[in-house]
């Protein structure tokens, strides 16, 4: 349709109605339309990217292609667009874009493949150039339209804060006033670096705008998927058991079906689903299920007794999957003046996003279409895998993305969406709201993997590291291997490998992924070596980072901020750590004390300095660093998910404790190094700094190393008493 709309028809229908400017390199189009639904239908059917809607009353609606889980994408991505469009921010509102990855995806995940995925702290990185290009093109269309209207050369026009100015003619027009006069240029230029706005004229990039999603979150009117209510909606719950992958045999089906409000029981390979009229009926029926569970791959697995076996795997002569191999590690170790061999360990941790998993799904009566309301981090599977699950065409599935009550990686999995679909299919066309209880969310979680890491370092007699070898033993490939690289350290011989061991436990990306355990091991190893040679850990790292100026700058900044080396209170000590995550370079310093009677570690202060490239929203970056560091403190000091004979031992916040306000540090200070490099991710940069900074402070304070995450009071006491 959009191609065939002539300019005349276009103008005829555009008076007083919404108007979309679609911008893409290939098919620049404008659509005018009376209803938003109709326009969204058009957008979904045509290869066209609509990033903005202008209305003739002056409103500018910018589409955000990313999920909003608290990281601020709803503000930062539109700010990039608005900057190049030169919009008046007071007229801007933001909506989620349609969930169509061929149109709104980014190719920064895999080349030539557009994906919508909010994970790995890659949203700003993934959409920076897309939003700039689209914003600049939207501005160009507006300028072109004004030039046509005024019959004046486009070159003589300029823009400022949502207006176009004709400096020669002494006239100006607002973007809103221009809407009835919009025309499409024959050709839309592709802009490149010199064409974009001069950063010194920036009004949004690098300048804080209040987050657009906060007022509703404070009023309580934000819609999370769990808040959706549809006519005729039913409720669903699943009982999944405590052993991952075990199959259920229901012993009291007729009893359950006879309960008030129970409409249907639905069998899954690993669960029994119940569909009821009300939520309380669903929860009551779930408690009465009598299920016998089958054997599963994780039967016999004990998460606190597996490290001996993992140590044997690390000691095996064969090599696993090699990830880093620079120089010659075996020669470096053989010729070492001093060799260090240290094992580090970490237990499983659980996501604990505050909104338990849920989804509202409606399957069409004929089973050939589906509509979903869900808080999802999106993913590689088109339309969250529903078309494949139901065996229906992609265009028959509509995803209504809602705000996410936390994700941290858990919501980049689609298990809960498909479960909701499986229930809704049984009662089509009535919609079903599937809710996971907190107990379901803990027990059938998908955790950050448990690992053992064997590090071997070689040094010369002066303490210079000549070789660094890192072997991680665990399950999940990149889930345990991410962050094992140390490109930034000037060490001539480096080696890193992953050795696989599978226990049948569900695993998933957890904020900063393998960086948490790997950076813990690497940075603690560095401090153990520095301490052995009586060198200051900060000075020691300065030397290692000598050839990485951007990294070094964060180290020096953190040293300055934290007044490193100035400890006066003998009951406190500072620890330092450096790392890269999602392209962002960060140094963290913390100050701790330890209660030697209870084993409790108190983190008093935390400082971080990061180089994340161009910063879109500085205060939001700080918020992400603060949040990441607090989540890090939580996981490092408290969080431990354990498994006995395959059974998950924890079920709620009584036995899986997370950080509470009483245990927060007095302050977290964050500095951002100024940079004109490509923007990188910050959502996960703070979290992995914590384990190593705390352990290094502990080593300085007590002379003893902490080598097993988490640092529970029991473990700390044990270390203190050896």
């Amino acid at each position, binding site marked *: 349709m959009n191609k065939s709309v002539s300019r005349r028809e276009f103008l005829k229908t555009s008076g007083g109605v919404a108007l979309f400017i679609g911008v893409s390199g290939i098919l620049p189009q404008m659509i005018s339309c009376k209803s938003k639904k109709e326009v969204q239908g058009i957008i979904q059917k045509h290869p066209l990217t609509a990033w903005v809607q202008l209305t003739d009353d002056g409103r500018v609606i910018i589409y955000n292609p990313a999920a909003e*889980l*608290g*990281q*601020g994408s709803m503000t930062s991505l539109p700010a990039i667009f608005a900057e190049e469009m030169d919009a008046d921010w007071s007229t801007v509102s933001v909506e989620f874009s349609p969930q169509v990855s061929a149109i709104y995806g980014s190719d920064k995940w895999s080349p030539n493949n557009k994906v919508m995925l909010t994970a790995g702290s890659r949203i700003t990185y993934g959409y920076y150039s897309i939003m700039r290009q689209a914003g600049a093109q939207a501005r160009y269309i507006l300028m072109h339209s004004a030039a046509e209207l005024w019959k004046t050369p486009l070159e003589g026009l300029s823009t400022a804060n949502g207006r176009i100015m004709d400096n020669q003619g002494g006239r100006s027009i607002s973007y809103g006033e221009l809407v009835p006069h919009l025309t499409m240029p024959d050709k839309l230029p592709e802009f490149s670096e010199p064409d974009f706005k001069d950063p010194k004229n920036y009004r949004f990039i690098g300048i804080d705008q*209040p*987050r657009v*999603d*906060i*007022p*509703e*979150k*404070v*009023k*309580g*009117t*934000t*819609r*999370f998927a*769990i*808040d959706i*209510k549809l006519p005729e909606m039913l*409720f669903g719950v699943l009982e999944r058991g405590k052993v991952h992958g075990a199959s259920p045999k229901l012993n009291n089906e007729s009893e359950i079906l006879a309960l008030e409000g129970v409409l249907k029981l639905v069998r899954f390979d690993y669960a029994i689903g119940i569909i009821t009229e*009300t*939520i*309380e009926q669903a929860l009551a029926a779930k408690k009465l299920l009598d299920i016998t569970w089958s054997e599963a791959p994780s039967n016999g697995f004990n998460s606190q007794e597996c490290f001996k076996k993992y140590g044997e795997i690390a000691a095996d002569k064969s090599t696993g999957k090699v990830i880093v191999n620079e120089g010659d590690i075996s020669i470096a170790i053989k010729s070492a003046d001093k060799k260090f061999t240290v094992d580090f360990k970490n237990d499983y941790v659980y996501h*604990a*996003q*505050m*909104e*338990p998993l849920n989804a509202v799904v409606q399957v069409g009566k004929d089973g050939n279409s589906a509509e979903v309301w869900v808080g999802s981090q999106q993913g590689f599977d088109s339309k969250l895998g529903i078309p494949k699950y139901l065996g229906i065409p992609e265009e028959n599935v509509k995803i209504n993305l809602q*705000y*996410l*009550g*936390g*994700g941290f990686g858990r919501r980049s999995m689609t298990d809960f969406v498909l479960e909701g679909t499986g229930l809704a299919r049984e009662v089509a066309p009535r919609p079903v709201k599937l*809710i996971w*209880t*907190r*107990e379901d969310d803990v027990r059938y979680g998908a955790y950050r993997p448990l690992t053992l890491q064997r590090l071997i370092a070689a040094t010369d007699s002066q303490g210079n590291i000549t070789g660094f070898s890192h072997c991680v033993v665990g399950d999940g490939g990149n889930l345990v291997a991410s962050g094992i690289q140390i490109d930034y350290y000037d060490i001539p011989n480096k080696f890193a490998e992953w050795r696989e061991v599978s226990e049948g436990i569900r695993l998933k990306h957890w904020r900063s992924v393998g960086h948490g355990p790997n950076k813990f091991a690497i940075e603690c190893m560095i401090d153990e070596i520095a301490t052995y040679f009586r060198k200051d850990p900060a000075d020691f790292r300065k030397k290692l980072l000598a050839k990485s100026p951007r990294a070094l700058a964060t180290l020096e900044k953190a040293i300055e901020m934290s007044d490193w080396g100035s400890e006066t209170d003998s009951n406190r000590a500072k620890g330092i750590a450096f790392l890269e995550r999602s392209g962002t370079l960060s140094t963290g310093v913390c100050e701790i004390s330890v209660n030697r009677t209870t084993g409790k570690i108190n983190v008093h202060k935390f400082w971080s300095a990061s180089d994340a490239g161009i910063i879109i929203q500085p*205060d*939001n970056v700080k*918020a992400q660093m*603060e*949040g*990441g*560091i*607090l*989540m890090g403190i*939580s996981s490092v000091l408290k969080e431990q998910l354990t498994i006995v004979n395959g059974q998950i031992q924890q079920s*709620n*916040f*009584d036995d899986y404790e*997370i*950080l*509470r*306000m*009483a245990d*927060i540090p007095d*302050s*977290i200070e964050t500095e951002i190094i100024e940079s004109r490099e490509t923007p990188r991710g910050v959502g996960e940069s703070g979290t992995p700094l914590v384990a190593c900074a705390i352990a290094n402070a502990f080593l300085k304070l007590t002379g003893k190393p902490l080598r097993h995450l988490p640092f529970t009071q029991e473990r700390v006491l044990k270390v203190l008493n050896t």
Partner: protein
Amino acid sequence: MAGHSLTINNQTYNVEIKGETTLLWVLREHLGLTGTKYGCGIALCGSCTVHLDGKPVRSCTLPLSALKKDQKITTIEGLSQNGDHEIQKAWIEAQAPQCGYCQTGQIMQAAALLTENPNPTREEIKTYMNGNLCRCGTYLRILRAIEIAAEKIAANT
């Protein structure tokens, strides 16, 4: 099933729901007051915090049968007319929420704190707010928001 009469945000609601049903699900799924959140179901996270006669309570463990008709329930929807309670304004000033899911419970708890103790110390804030979990790690900004609100309240009285 018995009839219950509830006073919520100064409005009377008559519901036909089993008495063992918790106030949380009544608010959310029967009355559409979804600002009150489900987080744990065992009163350990505080996302479901509402006021009962002005005191903060966890609605997830409060059965309907335990409520009396004359008890006044206030939810986030009834805390202020237009989301302009001093606490809510301070929350925006501090840019406190991230994902936002726990924040309505945090705000209800904080509002009750300032009613009881308009000028709390940092330690008093931490103690009073300790039952409200936030996974995004906004605690320092919540603390700041409460301090901002306390300053504003002190300046206005």
